[in-house]
Structures are given as C-alpha cells and as structure tokens.
C-alpha cells in the first residue's frame, strides 16, 4: 500500500471543492482539523510548488473586486485522479489502524 504524505493529501482534499489561495489553505487546514494539523506556511508553499510541478494543481493569478491580485490553486484532472487514489489508500490504512488500535470503539 502506497501512502503519500499527510500534508499532500490534505491539500489536495481542500482544493477539491474549489480553488483557494495559500493563506486560505493554511487557515482551513487548521480550522477543519481542529488545530490537529498545523501546516506552516514555510512548508505549505514549497508543497504547493511541488504539486504544481507534478501537474496535480494549477496556480493562477486572479483579481477579485475589492481585493488585490492573488494566486489561486485549483485541482487539475491529474490532481483529481491522484486524490482519488490517495483517498483509497488512506481509507484502507485508517480502517486497518482503527481495527488494530481502537478495537472496542467500532
């Protein structure tokens, strides 16, 4: 079973619904995980650049009314495919872990 890094699959998941900019991604990550996943900006941006290089996400400068130009990242088709695969792996991994680590809570 191939398991990609937590940060990578988390970022891909957060981009599934719509395109977001970097600051928003970091905020969301912290909110949704209840603070458990704290992806610092110093790691986030290099991660985004790597994903972009691999063609999983695509960054684009967008200007919205009343805001300054920002770089928004959205999933590419390849990104969606990769996310689906990684979700599959994680689901299996988490089920296995649950069965082993928390046998009485299922």
């Amino acid at each position: 079973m191939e398991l990609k890094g937590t940060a990578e699959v988390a970022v891909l998941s957060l981009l599934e619904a719509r395109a977001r900019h970097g600051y928003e991604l970091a905020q969301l990550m912290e909110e949704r995980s209840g603070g458990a996943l704290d992806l610092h900006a110093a790691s986030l941006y290099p991660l985004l650049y790597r994903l972009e290089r691999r063609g999983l996400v695509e960054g684009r400068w967008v200007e919205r009314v009343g805001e300054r130009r920002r770089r928004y990242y959205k999933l590419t088709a390849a990104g969606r495919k990769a996310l689906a695969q990684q979700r599959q792996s994680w689901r299996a991994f988490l089920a296995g872990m649950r069965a082993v680590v928390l046998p009485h809570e299922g």
Partner: protein
Amino acid sequence: MSDYWLEYVHCHLPRLGLAPEREQEIAVELAQQLEQVEREAATRGANAAVARQRAEEHFPDWAALARAIVAAEAPLAARLPWRLRLALAAAAAGSELRLALRGLRRARGFAVVGVLTLALGIGACAAVFSLVNAVVLQPLPYRQPQQLMAMLETSRQFPVMSVSWPDYLDWQRDNRSFQQLAAFRGSDMVLTGHGPAAMVIGARVTANYFPMLGVAPERGRTFLPSEDRAGGPAVVVLSDKFWRSRLGGDPSWRGRTLDLDGEARTVVGVMPAGFPGGAALDSQAEFWTPLRAFVGEQPSLQNRGRHAGIVVLGRLRPGVSASAAQTDMARVSGALAAAYPATNADSRVRMQGYLDLLVGDSSGALWLLLAAVGLVLLIACANVANLLLARALSTQRERAVRAALGATRGRLWLQALAEGVCLGGLGGMAGLGLAELLLRLAPVLAPATLPRAGQLGLDARVVGFTVALAVLCSLLCALAPALRLGAVGIAACLKDGGDSPAPGGIRMRQALVAIEMALAVVLLAGAGLMVRSLARLQGIQPGFHAQGVLTFIIGLPDSQYPTRERQLAFFRRAEEKLHQLPGVAAVGGVFPLPLSGNDWEAPYTVVGAPPPAPGQEPSADIATVRGDYFAAMGIPLEAGRRLGMDDTGSAPPVAVVDIVFAQQAFGGATPASVIGRQVKLDGVNRTVVGVVAHVQDRSLAGAPRPELYLPQEQSKLNVAALSFVMQAAAGNPLLLAAPAEAGIAAVDAGQPVTDLFSMEQLRARGLSDRRRMLGLLGVLALLALVLAGVGIYGVMAFLVVQRTREIGVRMALGASRGRVLGLVMGQGLRLAAIGAAIGVLLATRLDRLLGAYLFGTAPSDPLTLAAVPALLLGIAAVGCGVPARRATRVDPLAALRAE
C-alpha cells in the same frame, strides 16, 4: 503596504536561481502571506508594531525556506548550481552566526570569560609573532637581500675567525659564485672640532660595498675605486644621522672636512635615512671610510695569518644557490690551504646568509618564546572548548528538537561551530588590540640586545597571522562540542529531559583538563629550569671582586698616538693621574676586560716540553695588564708575585698565569711549582712569575678557559686600547666617574672616555637577557597556571552539579561529609595527576629547546620536576575544593525531591 513586504521578502529570501519571473511570482506570494498574517494579527487586537513583528517572525529560517522551494521547483536537487549552493550555505551560516551572537548576548558571563581567555592567548601570540616577524622574517632593506651572503673563516682551533686581508683578495679573484665580494671592518674614530672630543662609531669598507648592497647615496656619491687604494685621499661618507645631528643638515656639506682621529677627511656623500638597516653589521655606524687605504697604512694586516676584524659580504650571481656557492668557496679555500700551509692549512670559509649572521643568535630565543606562548594559547583553547561543551550540554535539548523538526546534520554542525567562531572572532579582535598594547611595552620587555626589534608593529603579516590564529582557535574550540553531536541520540535526549549529559561529554571535558594540566606543567617546568639556572649563574663567583670597581675604556687613535712609545707614555701618565684622585684605593688597567664581550686568544707552547702535533697547539686567553690590576679587581694571588712597575719593556719578559693555565700547560702541578717555568708566546719566551685565581673572562656560564697575563709595557701587540679599573676606597664607584674623566682630560683634552660602568653593572648585563627571557616565560607560565586552575574548577563544579542527586542519595544512606569531600576531590586530583604525569614526561624532553638557557641544570632536574607538579596539584586542589565543599552542603532531601 504590500511593497513593504515584497521588499522584506527580497531582503531575506536568498536568490533561488530560478527564472526571474518565477522568482518574482514566489516573492509576491510570500509577501502576501506575510501581509495577511499582519492583518490577521491586527484584527485580533494586536497593535501595529506587534502585528508587524509577528509577521516578521512568520518565516523563522529563510535559508531553509529557500532550500525547500528550490527542491520543490527542481526536484533533482543535485543539479543545484554551485553558486546557489554556496549562497544557501552562506545564508545558513549567516543565520547561525546571528543566532549564536544572540545566544552569547544572553549568556554574557560565559561570553566575556570565553572572549577574554582567547584574547589573552591570541594577543600574546600575536605580540610574540610580531617580534619574530620584525627580527627574523623581515628581509634586510637592500636590493634582493636573499642574494647577500656573509663570510668568515673557521679552523679547528677557532670556530669563528674574521677574514685575513690577503684571503679576501684571493677569494675575490678565485670565486665563481659571486657578482661582488666586499670587505667590511668596524672602526670607531675620535671626532674633534665639533664640541668636546667624541668617539663616533664608523666602518671601513671597500668601494664596492655600497653598490653591492644596492643602496645609492642620498647626496653626493660613495667611494670611487681611485679613492679605495693605499695612499688614497682622505675621504668619508656620512650617515643621514651624522649629517643632521652633527652638521645640522648643512646644505653646503660638499667638500667640508671633518677631523677624524686627527686626520682631516673630505665629505664626499651622505647616505639616505634608514641606511644602514636596523641589524646590519654597521647599524650604529655614522660614517664610512675606504678600507684599502687603511690596509695600506697597516702592514700587519697584509699578513695572511692575521685575522683582524674583517667580515666579507658577497652578492651571489643570479641563479647560483647558497649551497653551490658554499662548495665553490670550499674549493677556493682548499686551494689557499695548499698554497699557504703555514697560515691556511686548517682554515676554511664559514659562509651563511647575511640575515642569518645578524639574527641567528636571537632567532632561537624568539622561536622558543613563540612555542611557549603557543602552549598558553592551546590551554586557553582547551578552556574555551570546555566552556562550549558545558554550554552544548545545556542546549542539547534545543538541538534535539531542531533535529526532530528536520534540521539537517550539516545545519546542526554549523550551529555547533557558530558559537566557537563568534568567540574566536571576538577574541581575535580583542587579541589584536592587546597585541598592539603589548608592542607599545615591547621596548621594556624585549631583550636590549635583540637586533631589529625597533621595527616592531602590526603589519599585514602579523594581522594575517592573527586572523589565521583566530580561525584556528575557533575550530579548535568548537571541535569538541561539534564532535559531541554524533554521540547524542535525539530520542535519548528528548526523553530524559535533555539535561543529563551523555558520559562521553564528561570524558571529553576531563581529557581537556588533563591536557591543560600537561601543557601547564611543561611551561612551568621550563620556567622552573630557567630559575634554577639563573640562581646557579648568580651564585657563580666570576673570580674578581665586582663591588666598588669602576671601569672605562680608552682607545687611542693611531693618528695622534702612532707609536707604542707614545701610547705607553699616555697610559703611564693617565695611571698616575687616576692614582692621585681622592677616594681611589687601587688603579690598574687591562685589555680585554672580563665580561666586556671582547676576547683575545692566542696559541702558545711550553718551553722544554715536546712539541705538540700540528693542529693540536694549545691556546689560551691573553690579557695585557698594567698597574695594580689584580689588586683593584680583588683577584687573589696563589703563588709567586704580581706584575709590577719593574716589568718594563727593557726588563726580562714575564707573565702571570691563572690556575687553569697552570694545570693545562704544566699538567696538574701545584701553583708554586709553576713559578720559573717558561712559555713561548708570539715568539718570545716568557718566565712565569706568578699564579692567580681563575677569572671567568668571556661569560659567567662558559667553561673555564686558561688565561695568561702580560705586562702592557712588554706586549708586542697593539697597546692602543686599555680598560682602566679603579677600586673605590668606599661607597659607590660611579661617584669616581666625573673625577676620572677630568683626570683623563688633564692628560689629553682630545681623548674621549667610553663604556664607563661599574663592574657590577657589567656583571648584571651579562645576565640581563636570561633574566628578561625568564621574566617573559614566568609570566606565560603563570598565565598557564591560572588558566589550568580555572579549567579544573569549571569541570569539577560542573561534575558536582551533575552528581547532586547521587551525592544526595549517598548522604541519605549515611555517607559522611568527609567521604563526599574525598570523593569529589579524589576525582579532580586524579585528573590533575594524570595531566601532570604526562607533562613531566614531556618536560624531560625540553633540553633541545631550552639548551642555550640552561646552566648546570638538566631538563630532568629532580627538584624542578618534583616542585612543578606539586604546585600544579596544589592549584588543582584549590580548583576542586570549592565545588567539593559545595557538594558536602547538598541537602539530601532537596536533591532527591528535585528529580
């Protein structure tokens, strides 16, 4: 707003080596992130300054960020251009240095101790090195000075002889290695007509002397070949100093005449200021006259067997090495030996670099000092390394956290080195300041006889040396903590609270202390051996009674006193005048004076004994005396009589010998049995009429040499120079100085008196170099002692803190305070003892280094080798004592609860 952050990012993010548009894109995005962080903080109620600060701290490590981005952008990191990698490493090093400096600012006490320790070591090293630099390393101020060679002669009997004039002429004709050979002979002359008569130091040189050195006159010219010949015109070249101080810088110097030794000499040129260089043979010379004219007037100099003060200087032909020239000159002197067996059978050329000739004797002492000061620096480094180790242990946890967060190994190494580099850098700067200060004091500290020490200073070479030293110290100091990195597991560190050291750290610190102890023992032993030597030397009886004796030299110029008769007449009248002065107990004369630096040696044979094998002729030191010399100097008579008024030129030739001579020449005979025997000297049979006690005439430390005394009236040799000795009836002999000078002036107002000293001053002067050297070594040894004491204190204090809990447990289980004290002391002293033992072993190897400074004291001198470690163990006991007492005051309950 965004412009501020964009600017900020550009300032902090190292160049990434990507396409410019891409780099700009990334910078804008990161700037926006920071701006957002700032805005967020502001909306949460932070004031503007706090909000900005928070954003500025958002990316704590720009170098790491840049690395991560580059890795993301170009997944094959190995393809990073080297310039980028270098930039990244520099940025990382820069941020580590900033961190280290900030850390040092927080730990001010630690920083001050560390920097001061290194500054002391580096400063002392730099100061001594600048001495070495000025004396040994600076080239002579002549054209291509490495081509200049100095030549003397040597024989089996006389290791160092000056060159005989005919030999010089033949060397010049027959050699194939030198462009030029110039001859040089020191000569002091009496200057009259410019204030009171004064003895002025000068030199006689061949006409090619100045061109060979490659120095042109500042004004006028040097000697023409036509002036440098027998019967040539009386001309003189002046030094800049002479021209300025005695002629007032007179612009109409050309053609002026000066009265030197009663002869009017025409000034033909003035040399530039700064010539001759600091240490040159003629460094004190104020004028030069042609040598060949002088040789023409002195038929005795044309005798090939006469070695009368000439030194030959030569400039090698281009491409000829010194060793090739040596071979060539050996060939030349071999041919002369074959051609003139009577005078040259045994004599050879003794050649060395000119600089070598001038500073050779001093350089050994300087390298010795440099070695000693280097030891002190090593001890200082060991101390600072110890401090850094202690600090590294206390920041171990922080480093473990960094490692867990993904700091690379290189980065951790950098961190470990950074503090050492900061301390080394600051210590180096402070050390340079200290060196400058020490150099200002140098005239006081450096031996007076050191040549060229006047040119001390912090030049580029010294500064370069100091910088290199600081770098080396940084690395040495940081090495121990950096090595510790590998030994500490991250997990272990995080788990056990991070403040209990791995045992290896202690072992390394203990090793450092032992090394310090060993180095300190070596230094102390060196100083101790010198103290013992000096004490022995001061205990030596020179054989004469120095107290209450005044002495001065009279050198009669040939021009005023051309004949022996006139010279002797002068001395007779002078002796009489001095004798009449009130407060004078005895007056005598001698040449050369003991311990004056002059010596005179000649071969002799015993009349009636079988002739010695060729080359085995015995030789003795010769002195001419007049008046009550033996009485004035308090030299006891062993047998026979002293020389007296009746031993005139027309009386039968006599001599007085010392007991060493009596034993050497007549083989163990008693002094009385020697009286009446005859020795042959300079072709004259002399009857021994008296035997006196031995006098150390050349140096206090030398082996006793046989000595033979002749009455001045009967001496066949030059009698133009004589040292008068006057025994004061009571009180300070220097009070006789002014009356004595007046007495000489009454005999001849144009005759100067020179080298006026009390015999006690002369005796002390003979030891002053040793005393100064000992003073310097003593200071260094003291410094080493203090540093080593501080070192062992630091380690023991640290150990006690580490073992507080263990000590608490022991005390809770009933261990007495005495036992705890013994435990800690024992551990510290064991350490010191190991170091001291190693040091003693090393110290017994000191003889090669110290040889010239030891007298009657072997490097294995038991007293020194016992006393020094004992002293050091005492210091170590004090160093351990304080922490050990602290250990006994551990409250068992508190110690156990603290866990």
